[in-house]
């Protein structure tokens, strides 16, 4: 089946304005008759809940943590892009649009990206009005910096805690609507199924994580803002609770999963240390603005950094990419770090690290300036590694960070399942095969503040739905299925813990479906995952009870879903016989080891339809049409 992205006609710069005019409106007094479920309270979910409630809809919002303020958007450090052009350095909506499409290696939907660039400025206005304390210059106006992959300074920031401040802004708007009675908030709930009636999404089944009760909630539309899935790799920069369950359950109910193999590896993370490591910590890539990346020129050089003279250092990014230098996009920076380590030039105990050096920046600007810019990051680094980055260079290595893939959505951000909207990292649309720095915050807030309030109205006004409540048999069936699965997990009582399986799955994917991929490895991974999944369902040990606060059971359900989902991810990687952005297939590279796209055969979105366990998912294609940018080989030289 060929998928229709429902991109409206007209010139790209006029599409969104014209489309908003064409969309049907819901009469203000009718809005209170519609119930909307929002799952997740990160930037997308928090902003969507607040904005929809402000319009007058009845919103029920769910989150997995104890408070909506804790979603993982909070950990984003660096900043948020907007085409404000305050520094007068040549930025524009068009340039932000172009940079994002190019940065995504021409695998995103043009019209969505243009809209994102258009509303980017409104986001900054909105956040400042909420009291988000962005960094300011001496004159009291907003400060900007440049960020990975961009040659203009368009990134707004709040120290190294931009995600936190933006999320707390959205959380405050959400809190205001909770106080007004327009949002009912359900914390400590995990969505375990989507309820579909007459091919329309009409509700969800959630588990109350305190009591273990299963609850049914009906609605006129369901909005998933449940984040990304890179915790499938076990070790990633994601928070421990990040998972694919909500999205994958929707996929099992008929929503297509798009480009699951597009995962992003972040180049600047603190290197791994031991087996019991539970997560990897990201150091904001804003550090690359002042830090210089290098390795020793000679493989095997084990001298401490300060004993390696300037002439024996290889500043490989600056040498290879003179115009972008240390600011090349994430996928390029990550692959180059791996390349250096693969030839034995890696540093540190494991040899899986490169230096990020601030010596020159400190000499140039003074320690105070550097401290002001990155103080909290330096402190965090020292806390974790016990090394002082003001004195010795940081050691960094790439780690899994973000999922560009996600549930397929059209221009309305609605999936192929009617009434199911997907926002933020959980959808696939805006970042193509690689996301640029400071763009995730922008997309989450664009979707929640400025896109869904319009498009959901068009859906609610333009479709007819049956009158149902959560007494409908579809809710009972879904609840029963969830219940059966929970009981199964608790009854296996095998010999291996959930984490043990998860770690093995992650290692397999990192080796074969990580920074570099090849056909043989992917096939091996597929076989391995199949076996591991079978063993999981016979040999996992999940202690505790069903009707109780049971974190082992929570994790078991998530890992079970990862074990199924990861196969679709590997399938997708196998089918995409080209390299682009975060998907690097070793068989397809240029002479200079850059990703080699095949625009003739793969300039499309691959959307996968679930066809039952152990069956190959069915492939659906959305061709990508570029009318406004010319497809080129990305070059950052």
């Amino acid at each position: 089946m060929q998928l229709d992205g429902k991109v409206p006609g007209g010139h790209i710069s006029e599409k969104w304005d014209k489309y908003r005019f064409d969309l049907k409106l819901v009469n203000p007094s009718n809005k209170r008759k519609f119930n909307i479920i929002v799952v997740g309270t990160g930037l997308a979910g928090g902003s969507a809940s607040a904005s929809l409630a402000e319009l007058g809809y009845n919103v029920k919002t769910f989150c997995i943590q104890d408070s909506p303020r804790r979603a993982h958007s909070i950990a984003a450090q660096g900043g948020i892009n907007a085409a404000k052009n305050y520094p007068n350095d040549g930025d524009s909506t068009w340039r932000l649009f172009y940079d994002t499409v190019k940065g995504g290696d021409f695998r995103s939907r043009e019209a969505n990206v243009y809209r994102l660039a258009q509303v980017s400025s409104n986001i900054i206005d909105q956040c400042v009005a909420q009291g988000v304390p962005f960094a300011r210059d001496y004159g009291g106006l907003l400060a900007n910096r440049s960020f990975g992959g961009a040659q203009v300074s368009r990134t707004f920031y709040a120290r190294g805690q931009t995600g936190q401040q933006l999320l707390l802004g959205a959380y405050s708007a959400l809190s205001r609507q909770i106080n007004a009675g327009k949002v009912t908030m359900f914390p400590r709930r995990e969505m375990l199924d989507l309820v579909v009636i007459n091919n329309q999404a009409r509700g969800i089944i959630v588990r109350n994580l305190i009591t273990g009760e299963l609850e049914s909630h009906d609605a006129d539309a369901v909005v998933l803002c449940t984040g990304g899935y890179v915790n499938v790799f076990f070790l990633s920069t994601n928070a421990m609770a990040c998972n694919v369950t909500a999205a994958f359950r929707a996929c099992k109910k008929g929503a297509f999963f798009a480009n699951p193999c597009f995962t992003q590896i972040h180049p600047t993370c603190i290197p791994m240390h031991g087996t019991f490591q539970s997560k990897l910590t990201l150091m904001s890539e804003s550090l690359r603005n002042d830090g210089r990346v290098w390795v020793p020129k000679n493989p095997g050089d084990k001298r401490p950094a300060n004993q390696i003279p300037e002439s024996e250092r290889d500043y490989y990014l600056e040498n290879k990419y003179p115009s972008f230098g240390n600011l090349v996009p994430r996928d390029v920076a990550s692959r180059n770090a791996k390349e250096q380590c693969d030839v034995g030039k890696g540093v540190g105990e494991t040899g899986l690290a490169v230096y990020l050096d601030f010596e020159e920046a400190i000499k140039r600007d003074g320690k105070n300036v550097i401290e002001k810019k990155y103080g909290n990051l330096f402190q965090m680094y020292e806390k974790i590694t016990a090394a002082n980055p003001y004195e010795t260079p940081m050691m960094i290595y790439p780690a899994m960070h973000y999922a560009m893939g996600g549930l397929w959505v059209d221009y309305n951000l609605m999936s192929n399942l009617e009434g199911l909207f997907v926002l933020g990292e959980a959808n696939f649309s805006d970042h193509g095969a690689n996301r640029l720095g400071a763009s995730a915050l922008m997309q989450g807030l664009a979707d929640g503040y400025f896109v869904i309030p319009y498009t959901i109205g068009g859906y609610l006004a333009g479709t007819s739905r049956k009158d149902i409540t959560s007494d409908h048999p579809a809710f009972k069936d879904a609840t029963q299925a969830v219940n059966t699965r929970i009981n199964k997990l608790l009854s296996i009582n095998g010999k291996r813990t959930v984490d043990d399986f998860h770690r093995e799955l992650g290692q397999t994917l990192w080796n074969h479906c990580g920074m570099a991929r090849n056909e043989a490895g992917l096939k091996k991974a597929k076989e391995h995952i199949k076996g591991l999944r079978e063993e999981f369902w016979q040999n996992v040990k999940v202690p505790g009870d069903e009707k109780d606060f049971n974190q082992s059971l929570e994790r078991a359900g998530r890992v079970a879903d990862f074990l199924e989902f990861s196969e679709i991810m590997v399938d997708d990687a196998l089918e995409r016989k080209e390299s682009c952005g975060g998907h690097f297939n070793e068989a397809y590279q240029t002479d200079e080891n850059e990703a080699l796209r095949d625009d003739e055969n793969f300039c499309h979105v691959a959307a996968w339809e679930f066809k039952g366990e152990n069956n190959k998912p069915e492939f659906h294609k959305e061709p990508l049409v570029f009318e406004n940018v010319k497809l080129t080989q990305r070059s950052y030289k």
Partner: protein
Amino acid sequence: MTKNINLTLKVWRQKGPNVKGRLETYYANDISTDMSFLEMIDVVNEQLTLEDKEPIAFDHDCREGICGMCGAVINGRAHGPEKGTTLCQLHMRHFSDKDVIVIEPWRARAFKIIKDLVVDRSALDTIIQAGGYVSVDTGGAQDANSIAIPQEIAELAMDAAACIGCGACVAACPNASAMLFTSAKISQLALLPQGKPEAALRAIAMVNVMDKLGFGNCTNEKECEAECPKEISIINIARMNREFLKAGLISTVK
């Protein structure tokens, strides 16, 4: 340098809010000093699971010190002995071989225990819902640069806004007061021009709700500031008191 240590843990175990809890002893052996405190608990939990025992319930999420989900009282100190550090960022290199570590949940009248080390901190959300926001609907904002804000004011607001809502201030306070938490939000918004129109209403509403929820009063013990993982200053409490007084005395808001 990395090394391995052996520890004795005394951990608070409690099945639910209405049953009695007690300290149980566990042994954590061969713990790498590069591990974080929570990774050390992970190791113990893996071991308990394999021994057919129930693992220790504890809240945690980002494990990089920003989400505010984790927290426990370690040897009598909220988030443990290191200054300005959340529990997830506390590394085992700050402990020595053969140490005995007592691990307890946040204890406060307003925080009910859910299980083991997990407590209900929803009262903090309720305080924010009472007024911890600027009443601006999506779409109505003017250009972000239309009001200049002196850099030092923006920085002070950011200092207050850095609060992660973990509840350590409440747990550390002998009166289980939420003054530091509440004052951080009131300060942030009172400092910024965007928050000024509602400053009086906000101060009164948030302080009243805070009192109703069963949090204690401030008696200047300064424990909150000492244990705050984000080092939020008690100057914010003074600022809140000023806002509250001002609101009561000279504003028309009641």
